[in-house]
């Protein structure tokens, strides 16, 4: 049975594609492709009724962002989603620093739902929508 929303733990971090994209240029297609996606567990994707390259909406207490879901290729990661560092991940990462300066970029509770008809915003569109510039 397809669930509407799935509770997961959000991790953000590095990928080699994100590294190559950021050095090529943050307005490059490589950076957009590398950072506006979200790795998910294959079984979790079935639970919300999405396949690889379908758009999803990821929400936390900080906000929501539309990303492209991609099945994590190496091993099952049930209950975990992984978004490469970038403005898309930071639209929803926790800003709580626990009074030491470091936000909680890993281990934030999140919800995922299918959003096949929503568009993944480009970096310029995302910044405009968030900060009006």
């Amino acid at each position, binding site marked *: 049975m397809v669930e509407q929303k799935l509770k997961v733990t959000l991790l953000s971090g590095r990928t080699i594609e994100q590294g190559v994209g950021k050095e090529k240029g943050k307005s490059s297609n490589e950076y957009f492709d590398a950072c506006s996606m979200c790795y998910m567990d294959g079984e979790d994707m079935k639970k919300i009724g999405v396949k690889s390259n379908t758009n999803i909406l990821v929400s936390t207490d900080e906000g929501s962002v539309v990303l492209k879901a991609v099945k994590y290729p190496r091993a099952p990661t049930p209950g975990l989603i992984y978004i490469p560092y970038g403005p898309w991940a*930071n639209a929803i990462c926790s800003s709580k620093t626990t*009074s030491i300066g470091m936000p909680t970029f890993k281990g934030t509770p999140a919800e995922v739902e299918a959003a096949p008809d929503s568009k993944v915003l480009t970096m310029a569109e995302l*910044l405009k929508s968030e900060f009006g510039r």
Partner: protein
Amino acid sequence: MSIVKSVTCPICGCLCDDIELTVENNEVVKVKNGCAICESKFIGYRGHHRILTPMMRKEGKLVPVSMDQAVHAAAEVLANANYPILYGWSSTSSEAQRVGVELTEEVGGIMDNTAVVCHGPSILGVQEVGIPTCTLGQIRHRADLIIYWGCDPWSAHPRHLERYTSFTEGRFEQSQWKAYMQKLKAQAGQKKVESATARIDAVRTPKPQTCTVSGMPQTMHSDGRKLIVVDVRKTMSAEMADYFIQVEPNKDYELMQTLRVLVGDGEVDVEKVAGVPVEYLKEVADALVNCEFGVIFFGMGLTQSAGKFRNIEIAIQLVRDLNSKTKFVIMPMRGHFNVTGANVVSAWQSGYPYGVDFSLGYPRYNPGETTCMDVLIRDELDASLVIAADPGSNFPKKAVENMVKHPLIVIDPHMNATSMLGDIVFPSAFVGIEVGGTAYRMDHVPLPLKKVVEPPKGVFSDEEILTRILKEVKMIKAKKAAKKAEA
């Protein structure tokens, strides 16, 4: 066409200094010895995202201005601010960082570097309990047990294994590259057999879809360097490892504390810790104690998860315990190529490595109060200068929202998220490509960065831009003081 040898790569904390560049008509056209990210930077740095002229925001849009106009406007913002943040500093030279400290002191602001969102907690952990460490050269020649905990060098430091750990030929320890290739061949063969068997049976047995942690393989007991990876998910580095330990998210502290107990010959009366059976952890503890020279490299998996600096503190204490039985060291995997330099320069100039507050006229350091992330989230700033970093991409939304409420000065070669949000934007030369300098490797070894091509006309180094802003700030303040004296 000329070939420049022994170039230091200005990307990550590995600072690989064996890069060979082919330069033609003042452009890098070929990169030898570098990783994929290195090649992307040396070939891609001159792309369409490059900023070539100073810009200022007028009627909502960034428009080109002269260098003098931009310097004067930036100096006015900083000289008139009560509590500006001067943030970044990790992708520039230590020479520029030094000018940055002077500028921050002059304007009475906060100087913070990208350590605040990467290894700031590591610094806090080190300040609690010290750090037993060494240089990467020692690890290369002597380490027989390598542990990567909460980091994926294959993604973030692609040549770390090749230059400093498992896949390098040391004086006393050999490269495990051939053994790894044999393992890959064996795995490929096994997959073929499994696939053929499934076809014959005509019924494919579904693979278990749960996280499984298996016991230590027999190969861990053979001779030669061994590699253990501890992570919450199976990364490419984990696939290369002799043994992979999958820890549950936010439970690294428990796992390390358990290892401390086991290393100290204590008993653990539960079956699993952080998702890992204790019987396997006993084998890991034996491997740690029985190595001759072990090293733990750790990354954001520890510093950004629950526990943060306490994770580092306990990791260092585990290493300290191990040193009563064998030789063990620990090292953070530093990200930006000169974030270590940013900490070193800040510490030697002000006494503190990051989050330094000069607002009272002398340096203060109180993480949580004087760190820029907290100042941003509490919206206490009234201006900011960002150099050699991209908080627009890498800070949480709430922090960036407050940053753009106030005047934002950006110094960067790229048109990145922060440049797009900036009010005054300076183009700068690429450090390590268009301008030389000094950078500190992750093990605190300073290395020279080379200038291999000329920067575009009218584009200056970070050091020069900062020096000009500093000079202008001093002039504005002197004029103000003179006016006040007259009144």
